[in-house]
């Protein structure tokens, strides 16, 4: 044997490769010339032997060796074509004998396989014997790389010549012999391949691994060959092929071989073969070297089955219904065995196995939620065991398992069909993980605009989203009593546009809450009363956010106002009964605003919600309710709006809404007068004189209210510019000259005291 290639440099290898390549090319060229010439056949044989001699090298990497192999292969193809076509009379028996005496063993065997396979292709050849002969002879090369390529050559050359049916003519072999031939070659190649790992110095372990990975397809090609045998059906495969393959794979105990070969089996044999051999396959995986990544193998298998279902959705019907009904169960009982025999399987592996399994179930049994429930039950169990073992170490790899329902089901709402195991498992996760998942779930729902239509669904989804709502208890804040303090200061000086808390929330919290607010819009039912129930239910959860309601309640209010408008539009606020029902809507809004006020959330905002609610109440002719909301607004104005600029702005807002309360004027003028009297008074009490002056002047409008009448609705409703110049028909709803005059006079008096006349006239204009 030539010395080991241990110390060879890459440059040297490159040079050797170049040199050998050119020798092979030259020798092939010369072989061709000799074959064209009479009586030069023996010379050509010599050239063949010469180029094959280059394959004796041990100096090259597998990839480099493959380059030489390809060149030599081309030469041998040419040579064998010549033998086949041009030498019909050449006595192959003789030739077969002849090459056996030629040169070194490697060239001799290549030549022998070339001639042998030409021989096999001839009519009446003793195929079975030739097969046996060649297989036997190949044992002569035990160097892993050379041996693997030689046997690969054997496999390539014989592929179309092996008996392909189960009928044996004159003892020349049948398909069973072919299968045995391929399997023997496989077993021998696997041995060579595994042996390579144990050659050379241990410091070259990594290099060996790399070499072996390059060589792997040579071994795998035998399995490809088996899968190409058309006469082999799935039952034959289950009975006569797979068991031998698995046995060999188990016996070799080699991690690389086991992982790779099982992968190849999964890839090259058809899906229906796998469906009937799941048990055998599982059984084998439990006997592998403990270092083998079971996860990789199982995921490959499951993924293949999932792809199959996607590619051939109708296959199920053709397939034996019984054996299909329990694919999932088969996997589950395997998981049970796995837990029993390999309790130390890592959480990460376990979770990704469960993850693909969930995907399998969703692909095959889209309506079976029990399967998914049981997957989460398994997850919790493992999670808890690991928690004990790993000392409460929580890991992020469970996250994608929890995302499966929203990501793999076509309808994200399937998440809400799941049982309690999902939530239990979810709640076992860290706050950080739960937060990410909650946000991603919201994203999924928003992306597809998936509506939440039932109260139970609200409960389910908010049990998850609670993560975002409830403020994470930060022990440091609690101890110092900072939280309380913050609330109190904002009550004392609760006049800022922004409440103190708002400034404290980090940006990611703000974004989360805004997302949550967007989600509220997805709570939808065609029936406005049912829709209301959904929103009410959501509030039960949102209220837990305490100060955070400032982000979500406004949306809740907006949604309810919209519902009321809708009811009005479809004329459902007519009868007493209907009005009572809607009154609840208003009451609910009032509760929300009160809660926000209690948390001292932006008083002008709260005031504004009171006013727009009052406005709507008036619009739908619930004038008593409108009155109440105005009163609430007034209380708020008096008690919590302290800043003078805000006071003025808020008051203007109040005037504006009062001015538009036409229904109240019509239906309860007494209440209205009470309100505007009070509002006018507020104006005269403002802190700054200028504000007073403007306010009282504005208040004058409240005592003379004109309503335009739509005569030609199409014109007046679309009117914007230009049309405003036309005096539209109008009626006076309220006309109190005396009060108007009083207001204007008062405004003038105040103005007098602070401004020169020019300025006054300027702004009166």
């Amino acid at each position, binding site marked *: 044997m030539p010395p080991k290639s241990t110390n060879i440099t890459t440059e040297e290898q490159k040079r050797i490769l170049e040199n050998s390549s050119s020798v092979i090319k030259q020798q092939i060229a010369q072989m061709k010339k000799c074959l064209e010439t009479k009586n030069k056949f023996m010379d050509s044989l010599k050239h063949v032997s010469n180029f094959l001699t280059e394959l004796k090298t041990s100096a090259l990497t597998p990839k480099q060796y*493959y380059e030489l192999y390809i060149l030599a292969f081309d030469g041998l*193809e040419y040579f064998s074509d010549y033998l086949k076509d041009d030498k019909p009379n050449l006595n192959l028996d003789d030739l077969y004998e002849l090459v056996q005496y030629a040169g070194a063993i490697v060239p001799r065997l290549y030549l022998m396989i070339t001639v042998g396979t030409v021989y096999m292709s001839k009519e009446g050849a003793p195929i079975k014997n030739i097969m046996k002969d060649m297989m036997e002879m190949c044992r002569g090369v035990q160097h892993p790389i050379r041996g693997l390529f030689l046997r690969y050559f054997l496999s390539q050359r014989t592929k179309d010549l092996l008996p392909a049916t189960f009928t044996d003519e004159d003892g020349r072999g049948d398909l069973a012999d072919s299968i045995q031939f391929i399997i023997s070659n496989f077993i021998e190649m696997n041995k060579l391949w595994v042996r390579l790992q144990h050659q050379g110095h241990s410091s070259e372990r990594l290099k060996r691994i790399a070499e072996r990975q*390059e060589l792997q397809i*040579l071994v*795998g090609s035998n399995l490809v060959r088996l899968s190409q045998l058309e006469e082999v059906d799935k039952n034959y495969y289950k009975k006569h092929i797979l068991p031998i393959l698995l046995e060999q794979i188990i016996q070799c105990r080699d991690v690389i071989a086991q992982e790779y070969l099982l992968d190849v089996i999964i890839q090259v044999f*058809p899906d229906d073969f796998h469906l009937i051999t799941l048990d055998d396959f599982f059984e084998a995986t439990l006997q592998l070297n403990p270092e083998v990544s079971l996860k990789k193998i199982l995921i490959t298998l499951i993924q293949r089955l999932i792809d199959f279902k996607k590619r051939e959705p109708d296959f199920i019907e053709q397939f034996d219904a019984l054996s299909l009904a329990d694919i999932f169960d088969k996997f589950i009982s395997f998981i049970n065995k796995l837990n029993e025999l390999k309790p130390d399987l890592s959480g990460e592996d376990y979770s990704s196995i469960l993850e693909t399994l969930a995907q399998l179930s969703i692909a095959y049994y889209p309506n079976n939620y029990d399967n998914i429930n049981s997957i989460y039950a398994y997850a919790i169990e493992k999670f808890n065991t690991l928690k004990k073992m790993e000392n409460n170490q929580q890991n992020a790899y469970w996250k994608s398992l929890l995302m499966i329902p929203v990501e793999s089901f076509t309808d994200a709402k399937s998440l809400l069909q799941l049982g309690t195991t999902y939530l239990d498992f979810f709640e076992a996760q860290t706050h950080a993980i739960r937060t990410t998942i909650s946000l991603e779930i919201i994203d999924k729902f928003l992306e597809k605009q998936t509506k939440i239509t039932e109260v139970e669904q609200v409960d389910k989804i908010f049990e998850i989203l609670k993560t975002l709502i409830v403020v994470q208890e930060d022990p440091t804040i609690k101890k110092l009593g900072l939280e309380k303090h913050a609330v109190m200061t904002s009550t004392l000086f609760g006049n800022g546009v922004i409440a103190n808390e708002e400034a404290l929330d980090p940006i990611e919290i703000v974004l989360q809450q805004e997302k949550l607010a967007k989600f509220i819009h997805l709570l939808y039912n065609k029936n406005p009363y049912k829709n209301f129930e959904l929103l009410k239910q959501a509030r039960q959860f949102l209220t837990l956010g305490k100060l955070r309601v400032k982000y979500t309640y406004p949306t809740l209010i907006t949604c309810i106002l919209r519902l009321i408008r809708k009811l009005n539009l479809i004329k459902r606020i007519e009868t007493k009964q209907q009005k009572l029902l809607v009154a609840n809507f208003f009451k609910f809004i009032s509760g929300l605003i009160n809660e926000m006020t209690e948390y001292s959330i932006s008083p002008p905002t709260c005031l504004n919600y009171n006013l727009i609610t009052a406005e709507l109440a008036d619009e739908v002719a619930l004038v008593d309710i409108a009155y109440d909301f105005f009163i609430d607004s007034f209380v708020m104005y008096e008690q919590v709006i302290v800043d003078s600029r805000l006071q003025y702005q808020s008051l203007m807002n109040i005037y504006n809404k009062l001015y538009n309360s036409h229904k109240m004027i019509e239906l309860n003028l007494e209440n209205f007068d009470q309100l505007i009297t009070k509002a006018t008074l507020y104006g005269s009490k403002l802190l700054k004189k200028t504000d007073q002056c403007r306010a009282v002047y504005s208040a004058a409008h409240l005592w003379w209210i004109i309503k335009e009448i739509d005569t030609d609705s199409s014109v007046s409703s679309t009117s914007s510019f230009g049309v405003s110049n036309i005096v539209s028909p109008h009626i006076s709803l309220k006309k109190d000259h005396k009060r108007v005059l009083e207001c204007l006079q008062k405004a003038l008096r105040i103005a007098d005291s602070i401004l020169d006349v020019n300025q006054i006239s300027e702004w009166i204009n």
Partner: protein
Amino acid sequence: MSGSHRKTVLKVIILGDSGVGKTSLMQQFINGKFSQQYKATIGADFLPKDMIIDDRQATMQIWDTAGQERFQSLGVAFYRGSDCCVLVYDVTNTKSFENLQSWRDEFLIQANIKDPDNFPFVVIGNKIDVKENKRLISSKKAQSLCNSLGNLPYFETSAKEAVNVEQAFDVVARNALQQEESADFNDDYTDAVNIHVDGDNYNSCAC
């Protein structure tokens, strides 16, 4: 030498993402068979097909390849000496279409093609038997890519229903033959030089 009585061997490589139907196209062309079953290809191997192109006998060596890298661990030395390269995509798979160009580029580099602009490629859009709504790549779009890659011949086929497969491979064979003839000339030239330089006793063979 160009008057060689030996029949010509045309080496053809089929490339494309896994699952586009490379193996199926080859099976349909060579054996006239189609299987719905999916068996991944590992490594690379060829099937021979004898053809007569304008009275010339030739054997097409059609190399079917694995679309996944992990199944091509020994590299792609077999690209060398190709006479034509068939690029296949699946009309229902956008990614496979988008990858066409990188398959071509990879081929040109690895096969060490001397004159890339004139090397014959043929593009095939396979699986046109599928329902209209599953088709994601229009003929127009594919055609315009082929034009931009240098007016490559383009065929739409169904390996399943044997649509256009013969036609596509006929063009493959013709283009391969043309390529082979131009390459042959170069090969002979190098061989002659080498033999001369070598000056060994095999020289006598060159008659």
